[in-house]
């Protein structure tokens, strides 16, 4: 089992794959969260009736498997629109919208968790909608939404394994390339799992730390 053909070069190759996974995840989670906040606030603010078209679009992103979204988006951009863009751009775009769809729900749930009476009290004290949102709703909603958001970020990191379909060589694809060459699937999958753990664990712990810190003040 420990007699392996894996060398330092291959480990660097895997680390590069892990780097790609991190970059794709970071970009998608960032834009996904920004869009998710905008969509979530919009949905809460305008009510279910006016938000119905947006809700429908977000539901489409949530219910169609990511793999299919990636293939269709890639085909649409390259053949229908005739634009040559890299698989990386397509991957980040699709994954951002996918993240945004989930994040919008988390944001909406967070806002709804703030007691309406508290917000009415804030408004009756003369705070504007903007002040109410930033000073009352945001701090309280963030606390409620944080655990789900960390879960979403970790989920997106693992879902990013699917971007291999648009020719982005991330961690799992690099592992598959090595498996084809070295023919040691179990060992390499263990190494790959260890890499995923190495990059996910700090994020999970950081979330736990924030939760703990915010719960005391």
């Amino acid at each position, binding site marked *: 089992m420990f007699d392996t053909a894996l060398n330092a070069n291959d480990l660097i*190759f895997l680390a590069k794959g892990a780097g790609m996974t991190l970059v794709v995840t970071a970009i998608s989670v960032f834009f996904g969260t920004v869009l998710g906040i905008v969509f979530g606030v919009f949905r809460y603010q305008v009510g279910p009736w006016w938000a119905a078209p947006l809700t429908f679009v977000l539901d489409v992103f949530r219910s169609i498997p990511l793999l299919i979204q990636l*293939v269709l988006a890639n*085909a649409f951009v390259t*053949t229908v629109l005739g634009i040559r863009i890299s698989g990386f751009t397509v991957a980040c775009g699709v994954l951002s919208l996918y993240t945004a769809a989930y994040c919008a729900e988390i944001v909406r749930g967070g806002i709804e968790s703030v007691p309406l009476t508290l917000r009415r009290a804030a408004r009756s004290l003369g705070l504007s909608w903007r002040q109410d949102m930033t000073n009352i709703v945001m701090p309280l909603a963030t606390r409620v939404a944080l655990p789900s958001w960390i879960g979403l970020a970790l989920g997106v990191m693992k879902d990013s394994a699917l971007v291999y379909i*648009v020719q982005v060589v991330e961690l799992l694809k690099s592992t598959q390339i090595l498996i*084809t060459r070295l023919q040691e699937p179990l060992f390499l999958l263990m190494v790959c799992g260890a890499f995923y753990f190495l990059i996910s664990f700090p994020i999970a712990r950081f979330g736990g730390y924030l939760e703990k810190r915010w719960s005391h003040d």
Partner: protein
Amino acid sequence: MKTSLLALAAVATTLAGPALADKLDDIIAAGTLRCAVVLDFPPMGSRDANNNPQGFDVDYCNDLAKSLGVTAEVVETTFPERIPALMSGSVDVAVASTSDTLERAKTVGFSIPYYAFENAVVSREGLDMANWEGMKGKTVGATAGTYEAIWLEGKVKEWGAGEFRPYQNQADVFLALSQGQLDATVSTVEVAEANVKSGNFKGIKIVDKAPMVPDYVALITLREEYGLINYMNLFINQQVRTGRYAELYKKWVGEGEPANLTIQGVYR
């Protein structure tokens, strides 16, 4: 009247516009040629120690890109993914050892064959065998159920002399051959060359090519891209003419003559 004519002209130009540039123009304009290559099929496609693509097909893709004056982008695909990758527009051509079957030709456009998988007769060293007919009366074997096993068994029956032994897998056949349980076997030239070169099987040698119909493989692209198919046909012709075909064969497969890509008695 005048406005409607103008509108008609505008509509006509928008309709005709995209049709003018074909895939060949698109590739040259984009500056990259995206080739689908199967990378778990040595010696045609595999990865080197630094995990970079290498092999006959990879070199062939690079040559094609060079002739077009663009850079090559190797897109790894599996055998079943080749045609879907073409149809979905994620690659321009497939340089992926695709057999030119009539069934596939209903979906994609084939160039002329750029390579052919032939079969070789491999025997024990020290055995007096000048050509493939020397197998007559000998003990021969191959992997059960394969194309070459069926052909070999048929030949043994036809000769009415010798014996045919089926084996579970290719490695067993070569092991039996090197241990002297078999006098000769038939396998693809690529497998035979690789096994002789690997040194895992001592005392075996390639005698001759087996007179079976080779498996001709061609480059593929979208069915309607005649400009590109035409270009690829001429490119393959030039590869053979300039000796690049033989050079790549020597580099990836081994010594000896590469397969003849023409068929006696018919055009193309």
